[in-house]
């Protein structure tokens, strides 16, 4: 008997006033009762439109059916066949523009809480799973993976399962990529990421940190060392600045720097060796998930006022709907249709304010989004002592500049064959943000899977 409730089961969460002062996870996860109840909302449509909305085609109705019957482990196994990071994706996927967007229940009411169910099932598995993943028998082949973010970890995992000896090279001192330096603890607990990584190590994957490929070793040297294929999952870590006056004043951060200090280096904890500017009033420029993360971190560091300054309107905000909602609940002030023109400083060279212009939306530009047009004479100044630039990132040019024959787009994205992830260099593959520019965890994961499959096909022929 399906549950015909028009609303999703509400996700238990920390109340805004409390959670805006700590870094603990905001969403607490469904109880078993809620999960069973929510799973009953699925109508098991014949066409399965939800699956078509998933970048890795998780067999959604199948996992929900098992969940509804209380077989949570079985549900997990269904998801695990398509996704290697369900505990992560259940938390960070923009379901509203993927699976849940196509859910038939969403026509009259709210879609089925597919993301919430995925999270529940993955968490249940992690709490109850007894046996550690077994180390598969070796097939005698060696593959190198550059980058331990979602793309690299997925590629490594899929190959390890097929018996490949995989070594992942990570530039930072901790593995995880954006999962550890970008996405904050209150959205994605690092213990979950660590569990995924431990699982990979148990399968025999070697993870070498403090290895900047392109400096300590080049891709060519990896191939010379005997790795039969290389997967580049080096991400899009190069921060973009607006190049407006005042951008180098003390107190102006790229979101990458701010988030790295807070998330990776845990500057929010006393006892951390890494400093962070605990500002009173913060302006975060940008409207994506990174901007939301930066704003919510700034709030948790004790800021009285945190602004999101975004040049288009709410409709165009690229951030995940839940993040925008949570940010608003936590008291973040949205200054929409506003664009900064310059940052003002005091005599000591510290940020004092940010001057902005009001914008109006004109005709759509090349990206399809309506172009913001300045309203002359509408300048105003926001009184802030910290500005965080969260306007996008692009691929780091280091690998391209040290790998001969590796073709990239003008903006740095590595050019690959869509079906295989193969680059212009033989046996060198790439995927994730390093190819597409800053995108999502699930797309990166999908690319890792595609490349692993192609690498396996290619090396099996030899």
């Amino acid at each position, binding site marked *: 008997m399906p549950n015909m409730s028009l609303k999703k089961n509400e996700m238990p969460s920390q109340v805004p006033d409390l959670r805006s002062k700590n870094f603990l996870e905001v969403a607490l996860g469904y109880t078993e009762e809620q999960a069973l109840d929510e799973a009953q909302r699925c109508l098991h449509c014949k066409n399965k439109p939800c699956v078509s909305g998933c970048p890795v085609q998780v067999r959604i109705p199948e996992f929900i059916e098992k969940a509804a019957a209380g077989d949570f482990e079985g549900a997990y196994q269904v998801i695990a066949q398509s996704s290697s990071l369900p505990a992560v994706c259940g938390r960070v996927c923009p379901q509203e523009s993927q699976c849940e967007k196509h859910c038939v229940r969403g026509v009259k009411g709210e879609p089925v809480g597919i993301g919430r169910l995925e999270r529940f099932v993955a968490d249940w598995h992690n709490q109850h799973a007894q046996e550690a993943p077994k180390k598969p028998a070796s097939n005698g082949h060696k593959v190198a993976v550059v980058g331990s973010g979602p793309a690299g970890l997925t590629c490594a995992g899929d190959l390890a399962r097929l018996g490949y000896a995989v070594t992942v090279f990570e*530039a930072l001192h901790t593995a995880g990529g954006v999962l550890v330096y970008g996405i904050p603890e209150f959205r994605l607990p690092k213990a979950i990421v660590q569990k995924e990584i431990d699982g990979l190590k148990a399968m025999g994957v070697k993870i070498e940190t403090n290895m900047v490929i392109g400096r300590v070793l080049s891709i060519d040297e990896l191939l010379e060392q005997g790795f039969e294929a290389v997967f580049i999952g080096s991400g899009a870590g190069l921060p973009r*600045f607006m190049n407006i006056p005042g951008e180098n004043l003390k*107190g102006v951060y790229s979101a990458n*720097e701010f988030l*790295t200090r807070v998330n990776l280096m845990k500057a929010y904890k006393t006892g951390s*060796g890494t400093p962070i500017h605990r500002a009173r009033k913060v302006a975060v420029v940008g409207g994506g998930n990174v901007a939301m993360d930066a704003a919510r971190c700034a709030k948790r560091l004790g800021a009285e006022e945190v602004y999101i300054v975004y040049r288009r309107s709410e409709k165009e905000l690229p951030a995940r709907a839940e993040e925008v909602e949570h940010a608003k609940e936590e008291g973040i002030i949205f200054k929409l249709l506003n664009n900064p023109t310059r940052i003002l400083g005091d005599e000591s060279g510290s940020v004092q304010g940010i001057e902005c212009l009001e914008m109006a939306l004109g005709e759509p530009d090349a990206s399809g989004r309506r172009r913001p047009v300045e309203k002359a004479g509408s300048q105003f100044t926001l009184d802030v002592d910290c500005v965080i630039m969260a306007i996008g990132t692009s691929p780091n040019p280091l690998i391209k500049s040290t790998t001969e024959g590796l073709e990239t787009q003008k903006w740095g994205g590595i050019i690959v064959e869509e079906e295989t992830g193969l680059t212009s260099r033989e046996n060198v593959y790439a995927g994730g943000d390093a190819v597409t520019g800053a995108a999502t965890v699930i797309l990166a994961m999908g690319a890792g899977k595609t490349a692993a499959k192609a690498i396996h096909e290619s090396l099996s022929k030899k």
Partner: protein
Amino acid sequence: MQDICTCPAKRFSAVYKRGVQDIMYQIVKKRVLNPTVTLMEIEAPLVAKKAQPGQFIILRVDEDGERIPLTIADFNREQGTVTIIFQIVGATTEKLNHLHEGGFLQDFVGPLGKPTHTEDLKKVAVVGGGVGCAIAYPVAKKLHEQGCEVHSIVGFRSKDLVILKEEFKSVSHMYALMTDDGSAGEKGLVTDALRRLIESGEQYDQVIAIGPLIMMKFVTKLTKAFDIPTVVSMNPIMIDGTGMCGGCRLTVGGETKFACVDGPDFDGFLVDFDEAMARGAMYRGFERQAHEEACNLFRGRKA
């Protein structure tokens, strides 16, 4: 353990095989150069293999530690070691200085940054200020090995702080030691010595200045008047060191550059030193407190 300890390479693999999940970087030598400057030789074969003068590493002392950049003062590819020379200025360098030979660093990554450009230089004045001499030395050494005539001008506050005297002399055609108080060498600033050399007719292809920002600013002011190409080595606050955060950005010729990927060497005539000095002072308050806490921590320990 004794027999493994004699060979650095074996020591490295012994640590790895012992089951330590992550590689740790052993301190194979420690030498105090002066009351505030220490030299350490670290076992890091892969970094040693690739290191070039002008490049740097980033290290962490322990699990909660901050990442700090230090220039590679020397490297030994056969032994697989990298030498760092650091001044004890804050909590991390204080903790670092309390480690001994045989101890381990949590993290050590490199080589980062662009190597110093040394091609086609026939006569160069290398100007080092204070602990900046530790960074100037590998460059002077490489130039000397290439057959370049190296004139070294080094400056320290006083006699007790002089470092690398014999090392510099061994790679220099001419060596001028300046101290602020005249307790060693000649009394005066490095710019005094440099000015004198230039005015006496020395024709330098390039001047390389490495030291406190204020020193590099004034050396550049001097060389600009004589139109001698000048390269400086910038040392901004850094976090990741690979170009992903922009924390190390500075303005060079009106454009924003990242010291960790575009530098650390830059055209001295184009660098905005005042902005760099301001940005370098961003965390003074935190740094002072953290240093105090670290010192108290060590003082509180029973010997």
